[in-house]
């Protein structure tokens, strides 16, 4: 794998392979010695133009457990905020000998620009770009679903026959986009639920069903309900009237939680707004995979880094 930029261009075989490698990585994370020598001598740069401590430390842990050297390059307080361009930054990292760049950027497409520009030879791993994609989040979500459903028999399995309902700000969510492509590639059926203002205007080409009614969508008995973080500032731009109304119509509150089949998987990519898009009881219930998602994030990112950095880079 030369780069990991999006889930849209992953086929089922490579997605399952990545999840299977993540299973192997997860096994090693059960041991007392969690560190593997695999990427010894490789340099991974975490290039973060947006604050995201959670994602950064997840990647940092993944790199370190594979024995790569990690350089954290945060745009805050660096030359980047003084007007240094993405190109200059990339060329600096190239000169430093970075083997992989994990990039988080507020501009959609910035990782692809980095990968196709010729500024840098390193493998590019998209850690979230604008409102475009967040492929490792979707992969860890798929991994978590597969693990819950198939347990130790997960290896080699796809998500055939599973139904996933994703609820919230689809318009601005890179997590939603990456999950739509990945989960459907893996065979799941996906329903998106959101206020009409928070759905892109033209989703005819998306392999999903769109609903504006959460209760109706939940009554259909999905196997997985994935709640997305809703940003408070959206109400200032008139996407919805206020958080109370949002929560009442599109939040996973206690009432809705109790109506779910107890085998339903409740997911949230974090960080959560408890009491807004998800109630505390839902977040902490045994149906919730919120903490598993964090644990699995490290394994999935180890797998992505392994597939990116091991092997002959010409291939």
């Amino acid at each position, binding site marked *: 794998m030369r780069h990991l930029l999006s889930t849209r261009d992953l086929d089922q075989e490579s997605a399952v392979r990545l999840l299977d490698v993540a299973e192997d990585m997860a096994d090693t994370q059960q041991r007392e010695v969690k560190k593997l020598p695999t990427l010894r001598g490789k340099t991974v740069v975490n290039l973060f133009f947006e604050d995201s401590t959670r994602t950064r430390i997840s990647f940092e842990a993944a790199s370190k457990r594979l024995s790569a050297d990690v350089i954290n390059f945060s745009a805050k307080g660096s030359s980047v905020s003084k007007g240094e361009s993405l190109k200059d930054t990339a060329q600096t990292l190239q000169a430093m000998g970075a083997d992989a760049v994990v990039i988080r950027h507020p*501009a*959609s497409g*910035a990782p692809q620009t980095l990968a196709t520009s010729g500024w840098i030879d390193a493998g590019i791993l998209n850690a979230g*770009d*604008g409102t*475009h994609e967040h492929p490792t989040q979707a992969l860890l979500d798929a991994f978590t679903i597969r693990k819950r459903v198939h347990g130790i028999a997960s290896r080699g399995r796809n998500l055939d026959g599973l139904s996933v309902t994703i609820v919230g700000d689809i318009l601005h969510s890179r997590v939603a986009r990456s999950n739509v492509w990945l989960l459907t590639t893996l065979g799941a059926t996906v329903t998106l639920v959101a206020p009409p203002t928070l759905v*892109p*205007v033209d989703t005819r080409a998306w392999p999903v069903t769109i609903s504006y009614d959460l209760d109706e969508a939940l009554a259909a008995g999905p196997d997985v309900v994935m709640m997305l973080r809703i940003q408070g500032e959206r109400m200032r731009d008139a996407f919805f009237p206020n958080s109370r109304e949002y929560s009442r119509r599109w939040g996973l509150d206690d009432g809705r939680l109790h109506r779910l089949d107890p085998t339903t998987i409740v997911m949230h990519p974090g960080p959560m707004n408890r009491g807004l898009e998800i109630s505390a009881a839902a977040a902490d219930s045994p149906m919730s995979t919120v903490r598993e998602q964090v644990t699995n994030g490290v394994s999935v990112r180890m797998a992505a880094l392994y597939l990116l950095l091991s092997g002959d880079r010409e291939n």
Partner: protein
Amino acid sequence: MTNTYLISGAALPDGTRTDIVLRDGVLAELGTGLSAAGAQRIDADGLVALPGLVDLHTHLREPGYEQSETVLTGTQAAAAGGFTAVFAMANTSPVADTAGVVEQELSLGEQAGYATVQPIGAVTVGLAGEQLAELGAMASSRARVRVFSDDGACVWDPVLMRRALEYVKSFDGVIAQHAQEPRLTVGAQMNEGAVSGELGLTGWPAVAEESIIARDVLLAEHVGSSLHICHVSTAGSVDVLRWAKARGIRVTAEVTPHHLLLDEELVRSFDARYKVNPPLRRREDVLALREALADGTIDIVATDHAPHPVENKDCEWDAAANGMVGLESALSVVHASVVQTGQLNWTDVARVLSSEPARIGRITSHGQGLVVGAPGHVTVYDPSASRAFGTADLAGKGVNSPYLGRTLPGRVIATFHSGFATVLDGQLRPADEVAGSAEQRMAARV
């Protein structure tokens, strides 16, 4: 240096084969078997002679943004593309909102000599959309400004737009509107639709253009003035224009070459060369624009030539500047998008790229066509050529062309501005030679 040229065996736009003699700045003779003593001879067998092209929408960047383009380099790009007149947009620094700035631009154009530079004046002071600029002073200046535009920004305030339309009636001016509802396009990065939804780029909805055009044609009707719409980009805008024209409203409209050829699918590459305002639209919009140009709903092609320094395009999409260079490629792109499809013939091309833009821009020195006695503005084009368009084909400072690496038909072989060659054998003539001939011409005029 000769000032007589014999273009032999060229096909006129209507297909007639003829020789053309340019002498003392004018088109002196037309006919077969012509000879002219001391003339430099251009063998135009198999080539098409077009009246010198006129671009109603060029960003020359000078004064203020000379790192992007200057009047000299911009008119060199124009000459390379077969243009002999360009209308210079007002968004310079300082803004072309006073008689002083427009006269300076006019002079710079006269000195360079590659093309006639006709300044466009700003509608509002500093393009700020708050207070009318001194439209009358610009109109009566030596630059004789008739076209006014805040291009880059929309004249959004309906009262201000109404007043501007009314005010220019006193000197037969025209307001060229950049139709973009600002509130609907905050942070917009590309056409809003299927592709923007997938890529997660903030959308620029068609309605933001169409609603302003609808409002402004009604305003123009109400006050009985004339309106020009810059860079029409959507099928819906075409419908509004068709309705307005049927109603007898004095509205004209332009389409850019890139909106005739390229569509939003290219944005999937996140290659910032495809970032432009208004954005590349859907394939069905492209097809509607071609049809509208063919049936006259859209009057002209204008380049919106917008050079930018490399660093403003060599970056992530959001940070990139809007705009593409277009002068050098315009004729080839029109050739590829509407001539090769059979929608326009060369007579139509002469209309949409020469006579109509000159008429809309109210200049008489251009756009008269290839007739004896007309000023010697001629473009000689090889329609059978085909080339992989590259940076060597660009003559201005900007390399932000969306066509680099694409195969385009045709090639400009020679351009004559006021009877002097600015391009010969497909090569730009040297700046000192062109400036020298311009100086001769100015001296002769006194």
